[in-house]
Structure formats: C-alpha cells, structure tokens
C-alpha cells in the first residue's frame, strides 16, 4: 500500500467510520451472546435482583430514619435514580475492562494492537453489556418518580441540563474503571483494584457532604465518587444555588476521562515494548 492510500484512509476516519465499525462489532457480540440464551436470561435476572436488593435496603433504611443529612426520602431517591442512570454507560459500553487482565496475561491482547484502528476503541467495542439496560430502566423509573414528587418544573432547559449532567457524571465512573483496569498492564493479577473501585461506587448514591476531611478530598478529586451523582444532580435539585464544583463538573469529567484514556494507552505501549 502506498503512502498515498494510507493518508487517504486516515482522512476518512471520522466519527462515521468508527460508528460503522462499532455497529458491526456490536452485532457480532449480540449474536454470540444469544447463543448462550440461558446465561443471558439468568444474568439479566441477576442484574434485576441486585437493583431490587438495593431498593429494599434503601426502603428499610428510610423506614427507620426519616432523612440523611437533610436529604429526605424523595431527594435521596432522586440521587439514587441519577446514579443508576449515570452508571449505565460504564456498564453497557465499557464492560470489557473486566476482561482486560485475562487478555493481557494470556497474551491474547496483542491482537488488538495489530488492527489499524484505535486500540482502546476496538477493545471496548467488542462487548456491549445488555444487562445495563435493565439498570437504566430502574434508574429512569426512580428518577421520574422522585422528580414528580419533589415537583421540579419540566422545561426544555432543565431537561437539557439533566442530559448534560448525566453525561458528565457517567464520564467519571468510566474514568475510574478505565484507570483501575489499566493497572493490570503493570501489576499481575490486579483484579482486586477493579473490585475495590466497584465497591466504592455504592457510595455514589449518598450525598457526599457526609464525608469529612481528607476523605472528602479523596472522594472528590482522587477517586471522584462524589461526581458520579452528588455534584451533577445538584444542578437540578438546587438550581438557584449551584455550587462551583457542579459548574466545574463537565470540564473535570472530560479531563478525568482523557487522563484515564492516556493512562490506559500508556499501558498498551508498555505492553508493546515487552514484546510479549
């Protein structure tokens, strides 16, 4: 292939190019999933069960305690629904991160480096987790219920704001999981890092002003759990008194995502160099 054609090809690789590839790989993934139908059904039931049990815990908590740090039942539900929706993209589109360490260890990961497309994109596009959609449905239901009960007015501006901040919030969790998964390029068997981060996410659904001191800084700027629901949702809940950190959230989300992507790709380069 002459240099000329390569440049030409590169020029054509815009958003459309990647969207087309994503669709093709996605269809293959869904086909292969449907061939294990029992597994698919049971996994979906499992996902619904986790969400249900989260709700039961929540209800039991509020049966005993009227509010948490000034947050009443409906505001907490709002936060809960918000966090469920914000956690959907990481579940649906970035689930392959969980397989990264196995692929790196076995050496199968090398196949991603040989394709003439972005390694990160190709790796993530291989798995679309349908179970995440169940979580999305739960989240939307909860959010709408809380929304109606709090009585937030529905205007195009508020909806636009909601979508922007949901997108922002989801970037933070994606960044956390990317970075956690990428540790496997340096540490053998680093699965526990992902497990730990995944456990921390359970605290995203609580107002993060319950944390104090060092831990507040830790969970705002280092492991940005506070941005998965708390700060972004304040844009809707306290629309006349929005804190500075909420305004910064979109920019910070992009920054965190970019850094995690760079970290991930740094791991890939390190992997290349070992020649394994």
């Amino acid at each position, binding site marked *: 292939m002459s240099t000329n054609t390569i440049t030409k090809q590169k020029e054509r690789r815009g958003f459309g190019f990647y969207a087309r590839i994503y669709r093709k790989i996605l269809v293959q993934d869904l086909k292969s999933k449907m061939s*294990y139908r029992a597994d698919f059904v049971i996994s979906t039931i499992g996902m619904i069960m986790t969400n249900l049990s989260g709700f039961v815990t929540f209800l039991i908590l509020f049966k005993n305690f009227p509010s948490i*740090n000034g947050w009443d039942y409906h505001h907490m539900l709002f936060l809960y629904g918000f966090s469920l929706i914000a956690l959907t993209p990481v579940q649906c589109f970035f689930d392959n991160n969980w397989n990264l360490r196995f692929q790196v260890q076995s050496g199968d990961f090398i196949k991603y480096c040989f394709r003439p497309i972005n390694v990160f994109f190709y790796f993530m596009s291989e798995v679309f987790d349908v179970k995440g959609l169940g979580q999305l449905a739960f989240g939307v239901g909860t959010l709408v219920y809380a929304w109606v009960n709090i009585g937030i007015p529905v205007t195009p501006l508020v909806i636009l704001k909601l979508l922007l901040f949901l997108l922002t919030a989801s970037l933070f969790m994606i960044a956390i999981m990317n970075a956690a998964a990428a540790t496997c390029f340096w540490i053998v*068997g680093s699965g*526990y890092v992902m497990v730990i981060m995944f*456990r*921390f996410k359970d605290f995203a659904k609580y107002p993060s002003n319950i944390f104090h001191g060092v831990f507040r800084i830790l969970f705002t700027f280092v492991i940005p759990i506070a941005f998965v629901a708390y700060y972004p949702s304040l844009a809707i809940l306290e629309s006349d008194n929005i804190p500075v950190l909420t305004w910064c959230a979109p920019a910070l989300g992009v920054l965190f995502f970019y850094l995690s992507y760079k970290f991930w790709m740094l791991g890939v380069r390190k992997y290349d160099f070992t020649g394994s």
Partner: protein
Amino acid sequence: MNLKRHLALTRAGIMESLQYRLGTAVTLFANLIYLVLVYFLWKAIYASAGTDVVNGMTFTDTMIYLILATALFNFLEMFVVWDMSRSIQSGKIILDLLKPMNFRTYTFWSYSGSHVVLFALTFVPTFIVVMIVTNGAIPMGINLLYFVIATVFALIVNFSMEMIVATICLYTESTWGINIVKETIVLLLSGASIPLAFFPEVFRQVVEYLPFRAVYDIPLTILLEKNGTDTLEGLLPMFGLQLAWCVILTLAGVLFWNHSVRKITVNGG
C-alpha cells in the same frame, strides 16, 4: 478420616494465598477506607435520626455490627463457583474427581488454608481496631468463645450454600448470573448490608428462619450479646438454627452433587 491429609491441604492453601502479598495488602488498605465510608454514612444517618437508639441499636452497635460483618464477609468469601466453572472449562475437574478423597471434602479443605490466612490478616486486625476505637463496647468474656463456634458453623453453612450454587452452575453454564443472584440474596438477607434489627417486623420474622442469617447475623449477635444471647436460653436457639441448617444444607448439597456429577460434560477435556 485422616486429619493429617486434610491439614496438608490447609498448609498448601496458606502458602498459596501468601503468594499474592501485594494484592492482600492493597485489599486490606482499601477495606479500611471502605469502613471509613460506612462510618461516615451511619454517623450522618444517626445524626439525622434525633435519637440515640433506633430499634435497640445504638450508633456504636450498628457500627460494630456492620464493620465486623464486612470483615466476616471478606474472610468467608469463597470462589467455589468461579473455580469450579473454570476447572470444568479447562478439564481440571476430572483430576480433582479422581483424587483419592471425596470431592466435597477435598474442596472444603483446600479452601481452609485461605480462610486461616484471611482470618489472621483481615478479621483479627479489624477486630482489634474496632475494640480499641469503641473502647470496650464489645463485651469480653465467654461470648468470644461462642462467637468462634458460631463462626465455624457460619463457615460450614456458607460452604454448603456455595457448593449447591456451584452444582446449579453445572446445569446452567452461567457463572456470573448465578453468582450475582446468590451474592445479592445472601448479603441482603444475612444482615451484612443493613442489620436485621432494622427490618420491618413481618419481613424479619421470615428472615430469622432462613439459612442466610446463620452466616453473618448470628455470630455478630452472639458477639454483641444482643437478643438475650448472654444467657443459655437465648444462645441455644441460635446454635440450634445454625446446626439445623448445617445438616440440612450439607445433606441437600451432597445428594444434589451426587446426582449431578454424572452430568458434567467437559468439552475436549
């Protein structure tokens, strides 16, 4: 029964789990941070409640209960389901089945090593920290001995549940799904995520007779001397329930396994 053979498996397990020192250290550290989060959450919850005692549980009681439940969870966590599905896929299970030892016994004792290590590395440090921080809120006496006995029962009940779930996986070829269903049910109904004392009355009466409670709630209730477990009359029903579930689940597990083991298909194994 040759105890020496079994203890050899325990020793191998101890050595194996000490291999991953970095992982253990990081997990320990992360657990501490996790516990701090639990602490902040419940401090805020109790601060908003306005009263010190809710459903017979003070803030300190709840903290000790939840922290030790997390510590117990880390120490009791088994990966029987994952390991079995992997060894079926790789065909290794054939070698395990051919071993001159009952498969169930073999599995139990090969996990015992990691239990010993995790008990020493996660449970004991957590327990000591809680003891110092709460300044004598945990009663120190014969209840510690009862707690250890209850924990051994809890271990057996937990193992039996794991084995039954692992056997179900032989049929479904689904590991993640079955495992998450099991984990969710156990964590909720055993009181590990929210103390059983907070459950609504009707719900609690049902949950009290289920086996899940035998894993976390009973050992912790005994340790904290709640629900009259400081007397023999209060203690015996607890142990009775645990023992009953040990027997029932072990029997059910053995029968189910013997019936299902013939069905194992190893592709190209």
